[in-house]
């Protein structure tokens, strides 16, 4: 007991408490010296301008090359669009249904039929074919690029780390930010969009390729060596064939990434496709149009996903009706159907052409008025939800309790007695942690209390750097702490500190919402197979939807503004919260639950004392995925009026200021990479508690 008390005042404990102390000092000093509270403008460096100078010197030199590429791609795209739009839709529908039947049996056939009928009936056939052309051209480029990158990273281990870092950057770097340089290189139009789509879709293929190759069982590599393979023989005959299933997954994911990018790409390319239809619907506040066209792209995504996944999964036992033919004959048959369609259109142009010019039978104005009517009738509920989240979640994080707690909203003000009470509660919680021998926890509690009181926007920057570096040091080590500190330094020096902080709180709020709602749903689904089965297709659909689509319902119900962005982000980011919670809780071994029941735990006790602690690593990984999803959604949410880094990127797009966009993009990536590493490290620490000391 005595040593326990001595531990409380060990040097480590004292050192840990230095952190909240220093933060408090910064806050107090910030009141006196403004440069501590706010990073002075004259200290910032002209990063964006510098990037612009570099770009301006590079772009003219490679312009001849890119304009040739642009021309070639333009010709290909034009003829592909013309071909696809020339084909009569019944032939295409039949061909797709045949392939769907091969890939997923009767169920997928029915799904294809419904989806394609909807596209025809809603009047988006032409646009769909244009979008399909874009994807058909972009995917092979991405697959080839990903294949080569992944192979290169595998063959040259010393470049593997940098290439993996490059993948991280490519995946988190907001597409908006590289649209401008692409615009400068390829000109305004669908080709810049095509290239943007291709670039965006490379990393999934490259990652799958690399992991497929590195995960070839050691034994198979040894078989290659023991039979006397040369390195090339081993690669061609052992490693690449073994990595094939992963490559197939890569192609599927790349296709999905390309599809999810088409709306974003249409921002820089006025091209009569679905992406453009969704975007212009959003811009014109024509909700009916964006809703209907958004549904089209969702359906295209879902059937593309199911078909590619089904075809690549190969010989898998399917229940019910299924096709005995191999994949190649089915594809040939589909091609034959398309050929016959084309021939029939040549033979009888007038008859078939009339069919192809589908007008759509769904009346947009009816959809619009239905939506408006709904919003009008339930407006008060939506408003209550909006103001609730705004007053109790958004504002406290932005302005701190000191700024957000007002008599009009909270019913009381932060008078000195209330503040003292708040401080006392925080202190008590901290002391409890300390008494448990966890000075780090105590320091964390106190720091968090100060942060909540001040709010993210007003938090002094030296304190923020200190806090982040300390967290990074604790979860991972000095190297990472240095990296995290340097990242914050870049945000400060580039003058993007305030947008960066606003991004953080937006992510924070939406992650909190997702964790609450998604965590609850996941928990219920873990205990209720019926709910679980019901949630699965919804989650699948949400995950295959292009990010832009999430803006539509948010806009429908909450109008333009930060709140609509928040809702869109949360809708997009909730799936991992649900999935990981359910999977983590379900993965707790039945024997342990049985033990808990035998020991006399009530269901609630078994839940809180056994399941949740055991599932903690999975829950933290789910949190990580949720945070990542929220971050990648930020720039898209910016189009409906949030004020954060995404907005900076969006503004840069409007001003064609490539430097600003790229700078904001880098801050963005750094934020994502740091948060990712921090949460992963935390999850790993959770999984191996022995290394705590």
């Amino acid at each position, binding site marked *: 007991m005595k040593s326990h008390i001595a531990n409380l005042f060990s040097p480590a404990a004292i050192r840990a408490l230095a952190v909240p102390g220093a933060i408090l000092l910064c806050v107090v000093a910030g009141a006196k010296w403004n440069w501590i509270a706010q990073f002075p403008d004259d200290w910032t460096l002209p990063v964006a301008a510098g990037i612009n100078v570099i770009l301006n010197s590079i772009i003219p030199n490679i312009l001849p090359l890119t304009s040739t590429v642009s021309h070639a791609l333009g010709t290909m795209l034009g003829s592909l669009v013309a071909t696809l739009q020339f084909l009569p839709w019944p032939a295409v529908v039949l061909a797709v249904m045949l392939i769907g039947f091969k890939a997923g049996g009767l169920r997928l056939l029915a799904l294809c039929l419904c989806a394609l009928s909807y596209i025809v009936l809603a009047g988006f056939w032409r646009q769909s074919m244009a979008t399909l052309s874009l994807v058909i051209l972009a995917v092979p480029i991405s697959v080839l690029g990903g294949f080569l990158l992944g192979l290169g990273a595998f063959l040259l281990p010393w470049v593997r780390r940098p290439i993996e870092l490059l993948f991280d950057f490519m995946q988190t770097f907001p597409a908006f930010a590289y649209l401008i340089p692409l615009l400068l290189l390829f000109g305004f139009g669908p080709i810049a969009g095509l290239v943007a789509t291709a670039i965006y879709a490379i990393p999934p293929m490259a990652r799958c390729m690399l992991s497929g190759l590195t995960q070839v069982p050691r034994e198979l590599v040894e*078989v290659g060596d*023991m039979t*006397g393979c*040369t390195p090339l023989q081993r690669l061609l005959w052992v490693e690449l064939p073994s990595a094939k299933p992963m490559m197939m997954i890569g192609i599927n994911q790349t296709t999905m990434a390309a599809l999810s990018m088409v709306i974003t790409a249409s921002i820089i390319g006025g091209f009569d496709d679905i992406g453009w239809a969704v975007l212009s619907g959003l811009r014109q506040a024509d909700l009916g149009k964006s809703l209907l066209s958004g549904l089209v792209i969702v359906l295209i995504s879902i059937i593309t996903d199911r078909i590619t996944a089904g075809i690549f999964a190969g010989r898998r036992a399917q229940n019910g009706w299924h096709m005995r033919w191999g994949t190649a004959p089915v594809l040939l048959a589909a091609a034959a159907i398309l050929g016959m369609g084309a021939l029939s259109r040549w033979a009888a142009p007038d008859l078939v052409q009339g069919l192809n010019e589908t007008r759509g039978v769904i009346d947009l104005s009816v959809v619009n008025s239905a939506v408006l009517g709904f919003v009008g009738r339930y407006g008060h509920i939506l408003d209550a939800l909006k103001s609730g989240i705004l007053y109790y979640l958004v504002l406290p994080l932005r302005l701190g309790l000191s700024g957000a707690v007002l008599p009009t909203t909270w019913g009381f003000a932060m008078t000195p007695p209330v503040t003292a009470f708040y401080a006392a509660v925080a202190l008590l919680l901290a002391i409890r942690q300390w008494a448990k021998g966890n000075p780090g926890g105590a320091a964390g509690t106190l720091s968090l209390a100060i942060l909540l009181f001040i709010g993210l926007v007003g938090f002094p920057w030296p304190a923020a750097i200190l806090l982040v570096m300390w967290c990074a040091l604790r979860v991972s080590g000095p190297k990472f702490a240095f990296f995290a500190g340097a990242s914050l330094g870049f945000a400060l020096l580039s003058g993007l500190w305030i947008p960066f902080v606003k991004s953080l709180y937006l992510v924070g709020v939406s992650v909190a919402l997702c964790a609450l709602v998604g965590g609850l749903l996941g928990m219920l689904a873990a205990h209720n197979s019926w709910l679980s089965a019901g949630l699965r297709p919804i989650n699948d659909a949400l995950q295959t939807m292009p990010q832009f689509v999430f803006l539509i319902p948010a806009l429908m119900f909450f109008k333009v503004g930060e709140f609509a962005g928040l809702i869109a982000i949360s809708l997009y980011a909730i799936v991992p919260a649900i999935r990981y919670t359910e999977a983590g809780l379900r993965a707790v071994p039945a024997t342990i639950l049985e033990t808990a029941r035998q020991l006399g735990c009530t269901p609630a006790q078994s839940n809180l004392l056994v399941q949740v602690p055991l599932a903690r690593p999975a829950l933290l990984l789910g949190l990580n995925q949720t945070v990542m999803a929220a971050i990648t959604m930020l720039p898209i949410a910016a189009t409906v009026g949030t004020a954060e880094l995404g907005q900076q990127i969006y503004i840069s797009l409007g001003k064609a200021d490539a430097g600003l966009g790229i700078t904001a993009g880098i801050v963005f990536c750094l934020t994502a990479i740091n948060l990712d590493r921090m949460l992963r490290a935390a999850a790993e620490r959770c999984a191996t508690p022995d290394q705590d000391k």
Partner: protein
Amino acid sequence: MSSAPSLASPRQVKLACRDLWKLYGARPRDAMAAAMPLVEDKDRLRSELAGSGHVAAVAGASLEVHEAEIFVLMGLSGSGKSTLLRCLTRLIEPTSGKVLLDGEDLLAASRHRMVELRRHAMGMVFQNFGLLPHLTVLDNVAFPLRVQGIEASKRYARAREMIELVGLRGLEGHFPSQLSGGQQQRVGIARSLAVGPQIWFLDEPFSALDPLIRRQMQDEFIRLQKMLRKTIVFVTHDVQEAFRLADRIAIMRHGSIVQMGTPAEIALAPANAYIAEFLRDIPTLRVIKAADVMRPLAADTSPAHVVSGSAVLEEIVPLVLNGTPLVGVQDEAGAIVGQVTAAEIAELARQGRD
């Protein structure tokens, strides 16, 4: 029972290694040099190496494998037996030592020479079969020949021969995923034999199989070896398997060879308590042969029963139980060279139970 009598006749050494070391860690060669003075005290050596962040997976192993002999490397998991096997084939590069195949130092061989040797002189069977999932049985067995660039008709003919040999005729067109574990390992065996290797490495070939199938595969292995007379290095963690198959056994612990000898030599004189502990699972009477324990024939006795020197004691037990006090032992030429008494057998049986 063991395939060949172990009445040790000096045979030619096919494969040997001398003072072979494999260290894992940041700077294995430096750590090796620093730790060499401690080589006599294994425990201190280990802690010294651990101090610099190194582990000796193989610690000074020396052995000789004779022509046409089944040499078993046995040890628990982590004892370094698989690493030693891979050092012998240079799948893993040893830190120091020598590996000699027919007197040629493999560690000095060029990359080209190693490819040559692996293509023609070595065959290997893997614990998890190591079959290429995208190839049929026929293509898997023909794979080593394809690597050599042998034309299709020739390699398929040879592969069919091998498939026939392991009793898988009719399954040539199947994929590995369609076969049972035992069948898959037969494919692995057929593939390793396809090039007609001089030396055959088997790395825990039957460990991933069910006990019943494992026994069948052991019988199959014995049958094949009777036909083929290969030089074999066989790795296993299964004591019974080791004593059942081996001509000679090397028992490994912490990367070193603790004892090496014929099954009977080990069973009769375990080097230490660790090995004695292993032997508790071994039916001693089934391992020891009459020639291993016979004494010179006492004068003026003429044994009522005579057995061959390669007969295991278990075969003599029924005679002894019938009241025969001693049994004569004859050599291959038929001359009676020694005797085994009932009392001696009873004593050995008692020791085996302790």
